[in-house]
């Protein structure tokens, strides 16, 4: 049973799961924790990757500068996204509007609209071809660990995902900003009454979440060596599944579920055709919704 083959598949699964987790963290912060329906996160990811690529082809800066550039674009994109697709729906401040679910869920379409506009605009500007990243920047030099082969990017992604997770957990549980985010998420009207600047809190969350999305985008661009306008779609779906499985508001839950998803997909490839591996994600989504409507980690979900 302890065939190195399974170890290799496990390692691949973990690395795949990490890439999902990277995307899921920022996604869960906005969608799950802040409780705002946002379907434009995939395009923030794509924008981050394109920002990095443009920077690389223009000035060939060191990799740290590339990531900082992507973060800046992510912050800007998050701010603009909130402004265009979310803020207009908060202009009615009467109690009925604030409590209205329809008002809150209408951002499903407005964010989707923004995402379509961004994707098509990128297609017009850059073309829909896959663009290659200069090979010096790629983070996929093979590294042998015992019987298993990984690449440098796996370790970098692990480090970045861990840093994001720990940083966000600290922010959400130990700081006043985090408290404000959770308060707004739990009861926007109540938060307003106790004097929390809800607008600012929402904008901050969008900026932080989108910076993480953009960082994920550029890292994945460097990892796979290809950047294209439609690149945000599949990771967006996987992140969504991980978030729902993890119980919507739990970032550690989303990360663990992203890892479970990655490992299941790579292990499933051993037993069924690779063509079916996407079924794993959707299957998990359906099973979670039927048997664990609160998500796997929903029971321990913290609600202020």
């Amino acid at each position, binding site marked *: 049973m302890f065939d190195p083959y399974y170890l*290799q*598949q496990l390692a691949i699964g973990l690395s795949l799961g990490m890439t999902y987790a990277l995307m899921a963290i920022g996604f869960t912060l906005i969608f799950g924790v802040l409780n705002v329906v946002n379907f434009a996160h995939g395009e923030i990811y794509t924008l981050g990757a394109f920002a990095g690529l443009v920077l690389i082809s223009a000035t060939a800066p060191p990799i740290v500068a590339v990531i900082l550039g992507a973060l800046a674009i992510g912050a800007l994109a998050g701010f603009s996204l909130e402004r265009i697709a979310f803020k207009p729906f908060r202009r009615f401040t009467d109690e009925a509007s604030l409590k209205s679910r329809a008002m809150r869920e209408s951002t499903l379409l407005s964010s989707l609209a923004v995402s379509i506009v961004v994707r098509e605009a990128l297609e017009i500007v850059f073309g829909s071809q896959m663009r290659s990243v200069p090979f010096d920047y790629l983070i996929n030099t*093979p590294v042998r660990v015992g019987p298993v*082969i990984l690449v440098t990017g796996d370790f970098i992604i692990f480090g970045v995902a861990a840093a994001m997770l720990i940083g966000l957990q600290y922010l959400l549980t130990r700081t006043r900003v985090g408290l404000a985010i959770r308060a707004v998420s739990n009861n926007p009207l109540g938060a307003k009454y106790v004097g929390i600047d809800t607008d600012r809190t929402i904008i901050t969350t969008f900026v932080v979440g989108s910076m993480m999305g953009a960082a994920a985008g550029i890292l994945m661009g460097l990892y796979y060596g*290809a950047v*294209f306008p*439609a690149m945000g779609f*599949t990771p967006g779906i996987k992140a969504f599944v991980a978030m729902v499985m993890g119980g919507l508001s739990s970032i550690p839950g989303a990360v663990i579920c992203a890892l479970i998803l990655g490992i299941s997909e*790579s292990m499933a490839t051993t037993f069924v055709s*690779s063509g079916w591996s996407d079924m794993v994600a959707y299957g998990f989504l359906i099973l979670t919704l039927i048997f664990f409507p609160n998500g796997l980690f929903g029971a321990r979900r913290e609600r202020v």
Partner: protein
Amino acid sequence: MKFRLLTLTTLAAAGIATGTAGSAFAADTVKLGYQLPLTGDTAQYGQDFRKAAEIALTEFNAAGKPFKVEIVFEDSRSDAKEGTNIARKFVDDKEIVGVLGDFTSGVSMAAAQVYKDAGMPQLSQTASHPDYTKISKYQFRNIATQAQEGPYNAKWMAAKGFKNVAVIAEQTDWGQSVVGGFSDAVKANGGTVAFSEFFNRGLKDYRSLISKIERAKPDAIYTGFFYEDGAQFLKQLQQLGIKTPVYSTSAAYSPKLIELAGGAAEGVHLTSNFLPTDPSPNVQHFVEEWKKRSDGAVPGQFPAQAYDAVRIMLAAVERAQPSPTREKVRDALAQTRDFPGVTGKTTFSADREAEKDLVKVEVKGGAFVPVAE
């Protein structure tokens, strides 16, 4: 009085003249439809096709023919439902006498059902599923099918001494025809297929699949993918330190494959029916025109096929003059013999298949190099 009569006659004559000129103009513009993905996941292909079609059309309209041709482009997003809607739209437009496209076999075949009922000639530059041309006498294609390419590659690999092969392909109508066409030929040549599997188009991580292939210990891997998937596959093959030779179909023949995969593409073998390095004047003319419109990039095989498909259609429209109808264009298409295109000479056989000459190509030193064996 005499003067007035003269004026009237002149006016009347002028009126008749303008009248005839007007109707003559209408008859002198022939409309064609082109359905292709201009947005969505496969937009890069559709946009290339449109570019190639525009080159062909501009040349045709500038050649001083007695009539002009107009092409209506519609975006199918590689979605079968969308493709069928476009087909209905084209069929309803009485002026359209012929249709080009779609890109994928799946969408082309869905749209073909509409064209079959309406009697509209359809010429796809890329649909290579064997069943596509079997739909009706109105379906034509300008690409070698996998029924032709599979056995050709199987023979090539057998000649290299690869008896035990793995085959993978994308999970589409086309991918299935890749596996089918190839596997049957391998078995007929006395070889064995050690491993056979499909993956989803756009899969990013092939490492699980690669580990699984390697477990079957094949002598070589035959692949049915396009350049995006191909580049990822080859890079990850290299990452995992696997040296098994890779063979592929002409679908992967694109300069982008080498650009995206870099050194990992070295030694890949594939077939093609278009070589941008071919010195013949029409190929070089197309390559030059393409470079002008694409920042100096070299065209791959697909744009070349689209360019030829459009020119074949234009030639058919010309032969169907005067006053071409859908039926006349279909018959003219069916009579295409030795059309001198950039992808070689094209003749439509009785079952409307383009008989193409295939070239063996290997990636050497970062370029596609034709090889004898």
